[in-house]
């Protein structure tokens, strides 16, 4: 008995919802097998990583705080990827956004006023946009591949942090630690549920997802992104210039990554530290794909990935799993998802063995 892939007449809607779920389930199964084989409690590892963060209500606030930046960046990336603009450097735009917010916080240090936080948010988004406009410029003017430029700029941005917190922005009272001083009260993101760490960024993330969903499905902007990604030639015929689309995609994804950066630095960190880059920008790529490049799906996917982060930390303490385990689970998820996507356009068909050729 053999199986054959056969093209479907129309892409399967069912499969486009089923493959992300299947990817998560397969990740759990294979993860359990792998960690059992290398000598850990595999089933326990899967339970701690995927279930404990959900069953233990004390962990819910961690989920929200981890999911917020993943969702905000993931939404931006999902918009860019729809238009086939491959911004891989969200991590760099996140960092520059965080630095721009930090700059405002340090300039206004010691001051009070309601305008400081909005100004920081604005600066963060502009910072992310500015950093994303470098690959956009190179792509539209010189046709340089944006995957390479945006990725490489990420490493440059990390060095920028190190420079700034070691020299001009170094905390004068920090006893030589490479970090900025703690932001003053007016530059810190307020928590919205007293007694928890859930800050204003969490509802903002959900709002960003909802607004983006509305824009992508109802507006000409969203239509432009979808048509450029699906058929660039038809987009040109329909009056959507390719260069303008690249700019829009880069600015939106860069701006949202910058927003996530400034919310992180003003929320959980409250100062710029060397440990600020936490790979949210890279993980958000998985979030965007797991969420089917649909902003509503990205909200769900952001929570799923946040579960693996929080669960990974739990598993480190409870069953001594290495920190890299989280990364392995996340990578498996993306792998199974991309592999499973073939079932959206194709179906598996059983074929009976047949005589090869000739007369019977």
């Amino acid at each position, binding site marked *: 008995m053999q199986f054959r892939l056969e093209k479907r*007449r*129309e*892409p399967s809607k069912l499969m486009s919802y089923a493959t992300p779920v299947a990817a998560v389930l397969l990740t759990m199964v294979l993860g359990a097998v792998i960690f059992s084989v290398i000598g850990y409690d595999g089933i326990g590892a899967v339970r701690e990583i995927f279930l404990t963060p959900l069953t233990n209500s004390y962990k819910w606030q961690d989920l929200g705080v981890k999911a917020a930046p993943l969702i905000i960046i993931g939404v931006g990336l999902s918009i860019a990827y729809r238009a086939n603009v491959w911004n891989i450097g969200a991590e760099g735009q996140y960092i520059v956004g965080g630095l721009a917010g930090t700059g405002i916080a340090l300039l206004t240090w010691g001051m009070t006023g309601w305008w400081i936080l909005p100004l920081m948010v604005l600066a963060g988004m502009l910072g992310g946009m500015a950093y994303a406009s470098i690959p956009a410029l190179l792509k539209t003017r010189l046709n340089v591949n944006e995957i390479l430029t945006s990725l490489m700029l990420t490493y440059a941005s990390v060095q920028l942090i190190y420079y700034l917190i070691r020299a001009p922005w170094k905390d004068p009272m920090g006893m030589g630690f490479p970090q900025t001083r703690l932001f003053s009260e007016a530059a810190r993101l307020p928590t919205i549920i007293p007694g928890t760490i859930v800050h204003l960024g969490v509802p903002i993330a959900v709002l960003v997802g909802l607004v983006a969903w509305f824009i992508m499905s*109802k*507006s*000409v*902007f969203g*239509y432009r992104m*979808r*048509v450029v990604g*699906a*058929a660039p*030639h*038809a987009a*040109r*015929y*329909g*009056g959507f*210039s390719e260069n303008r689309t690249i700019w829009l995609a880069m600015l939106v994804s860069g701006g949202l990554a910058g927003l996530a950066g400034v919310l992180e630095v003003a929320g959980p960190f409250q100062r710029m530290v060397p440990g600020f880059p936490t790979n949210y920008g890279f993980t958000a790529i998985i979030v965007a794909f797991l969420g089917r490049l649909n902003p509503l799906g990205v909200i769900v996917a952001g929570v799923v990935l946040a579960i693996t982060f929080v669960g990974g930390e739990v598993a480190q303490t409870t069953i001594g799993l290495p920190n890299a385990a989280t990364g392995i689970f996340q990578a498996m998820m993306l792998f199974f998802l991309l592999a499973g996507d073939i079932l959206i356009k194709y179906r598996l068909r059983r074929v009976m063995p*047949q*005589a*090869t*050729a*000739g*007369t*019977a």
Partner: protein
Amino acid sequence: MPHRLELTGITKAFPGVLANDNVSFSVRPGEIHALLGENGAGKSTLVKMIYGIMQPDAGEIRWDGAPVVVANPKAARKLGIGMVFQHFSLFEALTVLENIALGMDAKIPSRELEARIREVMTKYGLLLDPHRTVATLSVGERQRIEIVRALLLDPKLLIMDEPTSVLTPQEVAQLFEVLRKLAAQGCSILYISHKLHEIKALCDTATILRGGKLVDTCDPTQETSRSMAEKMIGAGLKDIVRAEGRSMGLPKLVVSRLSTKKTGHFEVPVDSISFTVRAGEIFGIAGVAGNGQNALLDALSGEILGDDKDAITIDGYGIGLLDTTGRRKRGLCAVPEERNGHAAVGDFSLSDNSILTARDRLGMVMMGLINSGAARTYTGKVIADFAVKALGPSSMAGSLSGGNLQKYIMGREILQKPSVLVVSQPTWGVDAGAAAAIHQALVDLAAAGSAIVVISQDLDELRALCDTLAVVNMGQLSPARPVAEVSIEEIGLLMGGVHGATEASHAIPA
């Protein structure tokens, strides 16, 4: 003597459609047998099963009297079945010889292969220099490569899929010579076409399919083109109805010295083209594929922008610097040749495809938001008015057959009532019934005062449809002439243009 090929009760089902329903016919040795039918009638499916690309669900294929299972094209070639596809699979940067060598199942030393190629060419009068690069060849010459490739295997049955759609009248005549010679030597030919006068001129027998079923097997010389067309579409054929005493209005679209830059390696740019189309006039542009038609359409639609505002004017207003959206707002709509991926997005619903070109002219956008209800209503109207076979506005464009998608695209533009419509190959690969409907819609649009430009390789279409005709060759346009005053030979010579001359100098002696 047994039949060369005999099909009995061939049935093939796809999800949702019965592509072939109990089809039986047979082909004698040396017979030229036409396979006739509308788009979606099941011709391609049937041929694919004969050539081993697909397997029938039921029924029997007999070859020289013995039942066979054709598992794949290689097995088909082994039996002696050759096929020339509508779309060529050639590498433009390689020579004729290299292209043929790449397509052979068996490895043959290049010198021996060249000798065999020359032998086949001489035998059938196929003039071609094996050492020329494919990019420098006309479409007719490229087709000869494919024919030579098939003939090298000494086929006993040659399948030709719509072979004349890209040829000049002279090239068609040459092709028919070759096919008649082949038939005289005992090779059967299965000839797929929808050009009825060709079938009458060439074929001994015609099998007509409709909706997957066999309608009739007849002798085309005993039938009229009209009677065959009516069997094919299963209804009476409508003639193009023109309003009596029609007169042209003022010049509407004026193109003066329009040029484009050379973009791709093998793309032919537009070279200082000028012409005028009056209100109510249908202006035809004939020409062999690849002579700058694509660049001309893109330059007119606004996909390629020039630097002269007045190179294109509508009612005296220069639109040369406007993009496609700007030109549409000014009343110029266009339909490019390539349906899937250019005129329409296959992965989008028909409703979303309507937004692509109709959003501004029909008010489907308010403050940056799309009114999807308006798009759905308009798409429903296009589907109804142009008899598009689709489940509804939410059907994926890619799930429609080529002819139905073309009807939708033409309908989408025509119902916007543009004051200038530029179309390329409006009925390419579209069946007779649908083509007649599209032609009638174009004539009606012109009668309502629009200026229409039709770029096509189908001379019959241009002569039936247009008031004025010009020929494009190597990016240049011949002077325009009223269609009644030009003979088909004259057009053919203009179409041949430079190609004809180079061909003669490169040809090998027969």
